[in-house]
């Protein structure tokens, strides 16, 4: 007798747990039933991210780097599974290598992006990067895995927490990535992944007053509307991020300049 395979229920990733949508809704995509997140799910995800942010930002950069590297390790072990859900092994390898690349940046960003400033007076003056807070990411549809990782890794490497709206057409890789994150010591709430309708979720994300920055790389033709909503609390907006660069991480960092007099 042949064995009946155990099929997976594709759920949300929210605050470190895998709940169904509070609305109970699902939608059919890529041959599976996937959770159809509601606007309330999105607001809950922002709360989870805000709650997780201080601890994640407060870790040492070395520690965050190791957690990101651990994500690469966890993905490597699921290479075959990811390959099935994506464009194949080369995309999976690109995604894994991207985590490794950004893992190495964790404790180098401050040196490259910060500065010691030679002011004309008896003051010690320096500038350091700090995470902006909660970053909303609208993941691109293609490539479903590498596209998301390319936006997520630079957002969290500097200490931000993220709320991801996964590709509407290709969400399975995103949910599976969440499973790798959950087992990679990424603290619950640092990354939250929502599947569902972009049109429904993105306006809430862009206008949410407790989101500090949005990456609209995966937003479709409604980018202008989302940017307008983002102005409600002066969000930092990334429009189009491709490839890998420390400047992608810089887009989600604030610069703080500190002065102190030099004296006895």
């Amino acid at each position, binding site marked *: 007798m042949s064995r009946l395979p155990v099929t997976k229920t594709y759920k949300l990733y929210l605050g470190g747990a895998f709940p169904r949508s509070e609305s109970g809704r699902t939608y059919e995509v890529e041959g599976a039933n996937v959770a159809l997140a509601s606007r309330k799910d999105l607001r809950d995800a922002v709360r989870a991210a805000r709650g997780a942010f201080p601890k994640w930002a407060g870790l040492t950069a070395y520690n965050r780097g190791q957690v990101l590297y651990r994500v690469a390790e966890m993905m490597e072990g699921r290479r075959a599974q990811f390959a099935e859900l994506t464009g194949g092994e080369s995309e999976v390898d690109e995604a894994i290598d991207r985590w490794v690349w950004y893992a190495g940046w964790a404790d180098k960003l401050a040196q490259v992006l910060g*500065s010691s*400033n*030679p*002011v*004309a*007076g008896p*003051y010690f*003056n320096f*500038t350091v990067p*700090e995470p*902006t807070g909660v970053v909303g990411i609208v993941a691109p549809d293609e490539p479903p895995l590498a596209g998301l990782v390319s936006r997520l890794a630079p957002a969290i490497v500097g200490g931000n927490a993220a709320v991801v709206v996964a590709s509407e057409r290709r969400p399975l890789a995103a949910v599976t990535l969440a499973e790798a994150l959950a087992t990679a010591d990424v603290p619950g709430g640092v990354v939250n992944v929502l599947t569902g309708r972009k049109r429904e979720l993105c306006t809430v994300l862009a206008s949410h007053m407790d989101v*500090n920055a949005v990456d609209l790389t995966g937003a479709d033709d409604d*980018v*202008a*509307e*989302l*940017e*307008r909503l*983002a*102005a*409600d*609390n*002066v969000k*930092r907006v990334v*429009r189009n991020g491709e*490839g890998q*660069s420390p*400047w992608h991480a810089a887009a989600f960092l*604030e*610069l*703080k*300049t*500190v*002065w*102190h*007099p030099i004296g006895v």
Partner: protein
Amino acid sequence: MRAVTDLEKRQDRSPVPSAFEYASAPESRDIVRLEESYGLFVGGEWVEPHSGEHQASVSPRDEEPLAAVAYADAEDVDVAVRAARDAYANGWSELAPSERAKYLYRIARILQERSREFAVLESLDGGKPIRESRDVDLPLAAAHFFYYAGWADKLEYAFPNRTPRPVGVAGQVIPWNFPLLMLSWKVAPALAAGNTVVLKPAETTPLTALLFCDVLRQAELPPGVVNIVTGDGRAGAELVKHPDVDKIAFTGSTEVGKEIQRAIAGTGKRLTLELGGKAANIIFDDAPLDQAVEGIVNGIYFNQGHVCCAGSRLFVQESVYEEVVAKLKRRMGTLRLGDPLDKNTDVGAINSEQQLERIRELVETGEEEGAEIYQPPCRLPEKGWWFPPTVFTNVAQSYRIAQEEIFGPVLSVLTFRTPDEAVEKANNTPYGLSAGIWTEKGSRILSMAQRLRAGVVWANTYNRFDPASPFGGYKESGFGREGGLHGLAPYLEFDE
């Protein structure tokens, strides 16, 4: 003449007993020669505005009309942007960076040379004390040009492996609190990076920007590289939405900053915003209190409090509260309010009648909501727009005076017990531009500096500025940095 408010009636108009009486020491205004009327500075020439509209720029110290200033409309802005594009495409973008640098050095030197003239005009047009325009605005404006001049031919060292290129035409809109200094914060990095500029000065303080055009000519800057269009908010809005402007830089209120961000949504234009603030200035019980009180006073009464990074919320540790407030009130009694051109003046005129109204309105809400007001005895001049240095005690975090930017000489005092409480309260604002910390304990300075959500943190000092030091906010205080190496990036494109 304006009506006398209740607040003013209550004030003690008798001479200040605690302060010395100084004979007035007015700076001569003869050094400033103003035209009767100014056009727009476009393509290196003075042109009349398309509508023919002019309005007087008025001195806030006595409401004297100083000169008629042109009001640009959409057509004028379009002509200016074309001039900037033309200058960019035909010469400026191909000029050797080392030559760009030399123009900027020239501008810096001419500003130094003519600094007294500019300082007097700044105080006349904007109402700030001559001591500040002479010792702060002008030296810093010149220093900004000198600093960015040096970067012009070193961009590949500032951004290694990124092949920096200019963005194109920068549209810049600046406020009225530091007119020439804000111009230099905008123009110097834009030119150093190889861009051309259309700049819109504030409606109430256009004159030093217009005098600056004379400096540009003296420096022989090619026509169209910098264009100055005066007017009101309409001109600024036209500049922001002009399709051939590649980059917008704005300094001003958070409200207008949001409008600008909305206006350019979807266009792909680059944007930096330096917006409002409600900075916390935090005094711990081990701080050198006399020094801290000087810092508090400088933090809020500098430039009549017309400072986006003003330390407008004072947090005092409970154990030294009485002492700090007593010292503060005593120090406030020695502040000399009066003629901005008098070299003894500490607190000058309020920039405009509209701003005075806004300050009065918020101060009234402070009293209505239950805060206790103190103003030292000081005589307000009969003519012009004035507001005395003011401090509120008994302030709850929810009061409007503790939440909203007043942009005037009004301080709200709150208290705290522990560093955690100070951080919680200080960060309890949508703004995040600046903060101050006063304590002798080094490790506490560093932990507080780390936890305060603000772009500039001054420890045991306040309101220090330098061209080498990046400035800009967190949260609703805007994004992007001005000053330092970081201040170049918004004016550059990179390969990546």
